[in-house]
Each structure stands twice: as C-alpha cells, then as structure tokens.
C-alpha cells in the first residue's frame, strides 16, 4: 500500500501534471455514462408507434358513391378523414376569397390535386385542440362559411376547409394521398 502511494506521488510529478489515475477515472466514468445514455434509446423508443400500428398507415378509399355536395368520414391512422365532393358553387365560393386575407393563406388548387379540384380531402381534426369538426355528416351544421364548424371552441372553416374565424391556427390538414384511378384514392 505504501509503495503504491509513493508511485502515485511520483506520477504526479509528470510534466503535464496529469496523473494516470485521473485518466483512468475519466475514461471509466465516461464509458459508463455513454453506455447508460445508449441504454436509454430502447427504453424511450419503445413508446413510439409499433410496427403493427405503422402497418395500418395506408388506406384505399372508393369515391364512386360520393355525389357532388356529399361528404364521407373515414378513418386513417385512427383519426377521421373528411372526403368531400365539392359542388361548382362551393368551388366558386372558395376561389372568390382573397387569399392574402386568410390566417393560413392557401388556394383551393393548392389543397387539391390537379384536375380534381372538386375532391377536398382533409383530416377531420381541428387544428386548435384536436376535436372533430361538424359538417361532413348529413344534417350537421357547417358554420358561417359553409365548410366545417368545430363545436368545441367555435372554429369555422370555409368550403376549402380553411380556417376563417375562431381559435384554430391552421387550415384543416391535407394528408398525403394520390388518385389510383378516377374514383379511388390511396391515403398515406
């Protein structure tokens, strides 16, 4: 023991003043620290959506039965999606709005696919706090702008599902989708 302490003293007189023990301490503790942090990754990541949840992230919807003026609700990623077949009057109303006056400026064309401007596909999730707005179901109130109306906190959306009044910050989100034929879309 005494001999060991002497050799440590000797080490302390090395040119840079750093003892071997300092390095060993630092290396051992850092190694354990890095290992501990690496171990956190699986412990945290396991709460992310699992493979079977992600596998349900794509749906095919047949549009052939939706008449102009009608809308349907479907479910994608366990959340409602509104698919609306706009009437020519609703399209005209949406296009008549001066985009620069909107809270979240977007044209109807930007929110639909080219040549399919009558198909408005949006999430049925209010961008305020996530309630399902009314207006897609038969007989539901569509709010002062003729689109959707969220009963929770009074956000009103127009015929292009853009936010017009109320607390919601953004237009109803348009999910990723593509037309697989003239009457079918794949969402996700």
């Amino acid at each position, binding site marked *: *023991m*005494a001999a060991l*302490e002497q050799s440590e003293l000797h080490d302390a007189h090395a040119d840079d003043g750093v003892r071997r023990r300092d390095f060993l301490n630092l290396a*051992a503790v850092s190694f*354990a620290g890095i*290992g501990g942090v690496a171990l956190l*990754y*699986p*412990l945290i*990541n*396991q*709460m*992310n959506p*699992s*493979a*079977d*949840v992600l596998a349900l992230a794509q749906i095919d919807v047949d549009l052939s039965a939706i008449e102009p003026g009608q809308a349907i609700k479907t479910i994608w990623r366990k959340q409602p999606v509104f698919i609306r077949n706009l009437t020519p009057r609703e399209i005209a109303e949406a296009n008549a709005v001066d985009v620069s006056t909107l809270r979240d400026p977007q044209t109807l064309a930007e929110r639909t696919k080219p040549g399919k401007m009558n198909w408005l596909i949006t999430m049925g999730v209010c961008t305020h706090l996530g309630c399902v707005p009314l207006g897609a179901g038969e007989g539901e109130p569509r709010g002062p702008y003729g689109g959707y109306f969220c009963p929770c906190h009074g956000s009103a959306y127009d015929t292009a599902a853009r936010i017009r009044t109320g607390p919601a910050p953004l237009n109803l989100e348009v999910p990723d989708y593509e037309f697989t034929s003239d009457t079918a879309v794949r969402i996700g």
Partner: protein
Amino acid sequence: MSFPWAEEYKPKHPFMRWMDEKLPLPRLVWGAVGGGYPVPRNLNYMWNFGVLAGLALTLQIVTGIIMAMHYQPGGATAFNSVEHIMRDVNQGWFLRYAHANGASMFFIVTYLHIFRGLYYGSYKAPREMVWMLGLVIFLLMMATAFMGYVLPWGQMSFWGAKVITGLFGAIPLVGEPIQHWLLGGYAPDEPTLTRFFSLHYLLPFVIAGVIVLHIWALHIPGSNNPTGVDVKSPQDTVPFHPYYTAKDGFGVGIFFLVFAALIFLAPNLFGHADNYVEANPLSTPAHIVPEWYFWPFYAILRAFTVDFILPAKLWGVLAMFGSILLLFFLPWIDKSPVRSGRYRPTFRVFFWILVLDVLVLGYCGGSPAEEPFVMISQIATAYYFLHFLVILPLLSMFEKTLPLPNSIAESVLGSDKAGEAAPASAA
C-alpha cells in the same frame, strides 16, 4: 449507525447546508454508500454480489414496467401480446430478452451472494436478521419469478402454473380448495393470468422494501469480511466511497458483459422451446421442467416416491419448502464461534461438498424423472438435510479451527506492519 471513526457529513456549499437542514438525503447517502460508511478493508470480489443483485432488481423493474405497457394478460391475448412485443414494438425483442435473462442474472448473483454468506459465516451473530431478511427476499424472488414465467402463456407457462399450484393440492383436506382459490378456477386460465400479472407487478416493490430492511439491518454491525473477524479499529476499514464504489463498479462492468452476451448471443439459452407454443390445456409437453433456478428444489420435490406415513406427494412438498425454511434456523444450527470458512478447515470441505450437492440436485432437477436421476436426487436430497441437521452441529462441537488473526489489518498487512500503517481513510 456506524463506527465512531466514520467521517461526518460536512456539506461545504451553502445550498447543500440548506438542503441538509430541510431534507438530509445527501447525508443518508453519504452514511450509507459514501465516504461516511467505513467498510472492512479486506473485502474480496465475493462482496460484489449484493450490489449486483440490487442492480438486477432495478433492471427487472425498469424492463418490466416497460413490458407492462405492451403486455395484455388474458387467455386470448397474453401469448399474442408477447409476440407483439417481440416483433412489433420498437426494440421490444431487446426489452423482453433483457427481462427474461435478467431474471437468470438476478438468480445467478443471488445464489453467489447466498453461498458467499454460507462460506464466510455472514449469517452468524450479529447478522442473523440480515440473513433472515435475505431469505425472505429469496422467497419473494421465487414467487415473483414463477408468476412472471406464467405470463407469456406458452406451454411451459401453463403447465408450470398447473404443477406449482398443484403443490398446494398436496396439503391434506384443504389442498384442493386452496389450489382452486390460487388459480381462480379448476385449471390455469384468464383469472390466473390477471392475478399473476397484478402480483408479478407488485412483488418486486415488496422485494425493494425488504432490501431496504436488509441493508438497514446490515449497516448496524457493518459488513462481514473474509476473515470473519470483527472490525476493531480505524485501521481495519476504508470508506465505502471511493474504495468499494470503484470495486463494485468493476463488478458491474463484468455483470453487464455477461448479461449482454446472454441477451445478444444466446437469448434463449435458459429458455425452453416449448414456451413458444401457445398454452394448450389438452396436451402436456413430454418433458416439463421449471426454469433452471428452481431445479435443485424441483429435484427435492421429485425425490419422494414412496408413501411413508404421509403420502409421497406431501413429503416432496414439505421437503422442498423445508429445504429453504431450514435456512432460517442456520444461525442457531451452526454454533461454531469462528465465522469464516477460511479458519475452519473441516467446515470448508463440507461447504464445497454442499455446493457440489446442490449442483447435482440442480442437474437432476433439470433432467427427466427417470433413473438414474431419481436415485441420485434421493441421495443428494438426503445429503442436503444431513449437512444442515447433522454435519453442521457436529462440526461446531468437534472441529479444530485455525488461529484467527488479531485484526483485519493484521491479516492484510502482517502482524509487524499492522501497527505502523496509517489508516487508508486518511489518503
């Protein structure tokens, strides 16, 4: 409680002084595992296993809480939700393999911890309570591990549950009602799974509580040591931190190396292929065995094949529970005033024979119930009880022990240097 020369906790930073007045948690840590807890200076690596058992319990609780987020107890859902964890949950395979092998690691370090205590006489006065609380922890561990093994609802789970609850069926008169009460039915099914899941979640926290008592009771006399000689002066001890935090840290590193090798290289080494087949009440697997850590006790259970006054089934159950309950009386069975096997040459031989005996029991417990394993189990079972009931009492009467060192410091430094060496705590 500690030795009078324990270094007092003296916070320097004003915040720590403020904290010490309001909630002296840092003081508690300092006195329990810090510079304020003097520990014999001669502890060898066998003294790592208590910390490692605590670490294993912590890892089991962490991985277990996570798996409870994804597991669904229930006859129709349990097996599939375990497969869901293995295949769908992000890194779920890692967490489940860590939990399953973590149980094995927990038992490995606990068995080493127990045999350390047996060899060095750590169960003797003044540490009887430490020993008995440790046995309570061991029993709770076995109950927890058994119920956890039922949850995946494979063939081994189902038949394990049936066989182990069947042990209670051996009790005269009330046996069958007790078995039905435990299972919540006539055979293991959904009620069994839901109650086992609830208790499997609860018991680890009970274990943690008993561990607090175990450590509390330990810190009154302080740790035993390889000489078994009492601590007498400051020369005999070093502060827990940094000496044993560093030594335990090294052990933790080895622990994780072995654990990682199991998880990543041989995750099903201790498992049974049959448990990847969903529970089927109509078909018993050809060879059912419990997990390896129950094998010695399973061998004792099966060693009784002939009715003698009582039915053989009851004898097996009594012997199996008796083999552990017996250990509660060990501090009074072994009356030898010398603690450590290092100074008990005859005891030492019988200690290693006992280790061999338990290993033989384990091997037989994992083998099919046929000859020669039945006969070997019977001999080994008889020897197990002989060791504790006959050999140990005789040894404490007749064994000629070796001379003990005057102090721990003398055993480490030699008698000529013990006086001059400064206590290492000054360093």
